[in-house]
């Protein structure tokens, strides 16, 4: 796997998947990070103004914490997380052992519909990522 360096073609394919599967759906922002807190790519509507670097560091920490909790209760992992707010919701889903997909969305998208699309997006991203093997 070409982890550590991502090439232009891969990146564009991944961004296209994020756009087609998530942004078109009405998601505010979709971010792919690695478990060390680095940002791989971000796709948003252009309206959101989040501090994504701090966000990525905290998200990686958050996911790692939950992962440790999973092990304490005898699970191998909790592969997804969901935080619900008044106006903004955040959904975290594991792509593989190193990558995490984070989606931020408002009140007008149902969680179920989002999850369906996240699953499809992850499936496609895995294929793009695996091409470099």
């Amino acid at each position, binding site marked *: 796997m070409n*982890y*550590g*360096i*991502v*090439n*232009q073609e891969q*990146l*564009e394919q991944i961004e296209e998947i994020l756009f087609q599967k998530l942004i078109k759906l009405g998601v505010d922002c979709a971010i792919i990070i*690695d*478990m*060390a*807190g*680095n*940002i*791989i*790519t971000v796709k948003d509507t252009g309206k959101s103004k989040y*501090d994504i*670097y*701090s966000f990525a*560091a*905290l998200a*990686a*920490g958050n996911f*790692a*914490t939950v992962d*440790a909790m999973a092990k304490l209760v005898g699970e191998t992992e909790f592969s997804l997380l969901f935080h619900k707010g008044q106006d903004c919701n955040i959904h975290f889903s594991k792509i593989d052992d190193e990558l995490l997909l984070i989606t931020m969305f408002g009140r007008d998208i149902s969680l179920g519909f989002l999850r369906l699309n996240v699953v499809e997006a992850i499936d496609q991203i895995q294929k793009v990522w695996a091409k470099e093997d």
Partner: protein
Amino acid sequence: MSFINLRDKVVQVKIVYYGPGRCGKTTNLEYINRKFKEQIQSEMVSLKTHGDRTLFFDFLPFHMGQIKGYDIKIQLYTVPGQVKYNATRKLVLKGVDGIVFVADAMEKQREKNIRSLNQLHENLQSYKESIFKIPLVMQYNKIDLKDHGIPVLPIAVLQQDLNSRLQVPYFEASAITGYNVAATLKKIISSTVVSIQKKLL
């Protein structure tokens, strides 16, 4: 591992401040945050307890300009120093590119420094990294305390305890006054960037 985006020409570098409890890791970052305000676009993130001890980590993103057309984004982290938090320390070390080991120069902290350094060695091994290979800088902090009559270990002793086998660059420092904080940061950034360049070539 640093993350390199070839299209946007961005390199993300992770540097971790490591060391025993209350040695001044967070103080280092706080000083950098104040001193280099114009290079830091976002707020410093601190996850701490009510008693102001670091619970998980501090995070400070730092802009360093360009090298060969690549934007270098430095991400500074600290670990929680308290002995009981080793699991979180290990999590923060994931994907680390360079480490500043902050040692507490106070005489009574001698053993804690050694223990913390040993644990760093073990924690890195769990990620298949070696303390002998990763870019590392020693900082002997709180050197200002000797002016206040508090016994401070001589540099020779600290070097013997912590740096006799590692042989890495070291600085006497005082994070609270800012003495050598920037020098430490500059050294670790340059060692780390050089090591990343070597890996790529």
